[in-house]
């Protein structure tokens, strides 16, 4: 398995960052292995990390009193999980559970925030990338609100 320093330059999330910046980021990162069912974080926990999935699958979950546990999204190899580490009050807004045996790179949010505060260029670059992840999730949520496949608007004029 490649080291974190070797892995980051090929990852789309870190694309375009120069070697010193990547080294700075890698300094805040550790590899974590998860058994199926293990949690990366829980809703309401301090959001002190974000994660890049290296292998396996992570389920993003929310819980409701009537609906029980609902998987809203899954993150597979290469996907990024979590942005609350960058947004005060730094609290996780969902549970993240390994849906199968998985490996992730965990980035220490407090460590990165400190580096971002003292290096505006790094802060801007990370903010741009995290915003892209947030935008993707927002668009997906908007489309799913339309209930595309099962909406009440379906009629005999369009039953396929």
């Amino acid at each position, binding site marked *: 398995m490649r080291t974190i320093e070797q892995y980051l330059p090929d990852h789309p999330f870190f694309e375009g960052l120069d070697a010193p910046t990547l080294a700075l980021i890698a300094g805040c990162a550790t590899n974590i292995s998860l058994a199926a069912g293990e949690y990366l974080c829980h809703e309401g926990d301090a959001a002190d990390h974000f994660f890049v999935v290296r292998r396996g*699958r992570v*389920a*993003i*979950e929310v819980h409701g009193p009537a609906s*029980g*546990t*609902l*998987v*809203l*999204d*899954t993150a*597979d190899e290469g996907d990024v999980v979590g942005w609350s580490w960058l947004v005060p009050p730094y609290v996780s807004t969902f549970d993240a*559970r390994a*849906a*199968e045996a998985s490996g992730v790179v965990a980035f220490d949010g407090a460590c990165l925030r400190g580096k971002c505060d003292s290096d505006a260029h790094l802060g801007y670059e990370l903010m741009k990338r995290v915003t892209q992840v947030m935008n993707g999730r927002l668009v*997906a949520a908007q*489309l*799913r609100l*339309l*209930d*595309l*496949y*099962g909406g009440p608007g*379906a*009629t*005999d*004029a*369009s*039953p*396929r």
Partner: protein
Amino acid sequence: MPRLAEPTAVQPVESAMVPRLFRLVDRRQDTADTFTIVLEPNDGVPLAFIPGQFTMLSAFGVGEVPISVSGDAHVAGPLQHTVRDVGAVTHALARTAVGDVMGVRGPYGTGWDVADGHSRDVVFVGGGIGLAPLRPAVLEVLAHREDYGRVVLLYGARSPEELLFVDEMKQWEDQGMEVLVTVDYGRESWQGRVGLVTKLIPRAGFDPMSTLALICGPEVMMRHTALALVGRGVRSNRIRVSLERNMRCGVGLCGHCQYRELFVCVDGPVLPYAQVTGLLGLREV
């Protein structure tokens, strides 16, 4: 296996409006609201069609609905339709039993023309019940697997319980198709992917510069899927979509399915994305 003759291109309008009688010989409940019916013609003459075409199915005394054929176009045998129970006519069809008779007009409209994907990669993208109109094209490609490059199915549905043709998808994988599935929402017990079908596009193995992409699903899903495919490098004139409009006559006379300059029942339902790019985003036409 016996092969069917090519379907006739144009039928006289009078005969096109008269349904043939078909008898239900088998019925399968696919999901809570979706079922597949298997029909034999009373006159013994199989109904020839090309993948992507639809028929007008009649529940006598209730009405008619346009339903894409979901069976195998190249095997002489009964006619197969996969139908979602969403209104009066489809509800009447849902209540039919083996031996019941219904009316069938058609087949109508344009097909997927999968032969255009010879020597190229073929990517099928289905959303919900939209996998049913793609199934004949999938079967055609897999029946001539050696004529195509990589073959991929990307399929999205609302929930795991609403996925269609689950067992068959395993056979398709065995026949050399890459199958990626996702659902909008899942429970803890669901081990598969959750998210939009567009999320599968970067993960699928195909060469965008040499790909024929066929999309069928709700229009919003088709629009976003086509944009994502174009974003990956697939040319818009190599993408086809199957449109759904209020088809009534099936032969371009009544105008119910008019979509600006198009009559979807005769110009479609399958159309090049490049031809309808500007139409798919419109709120009203």
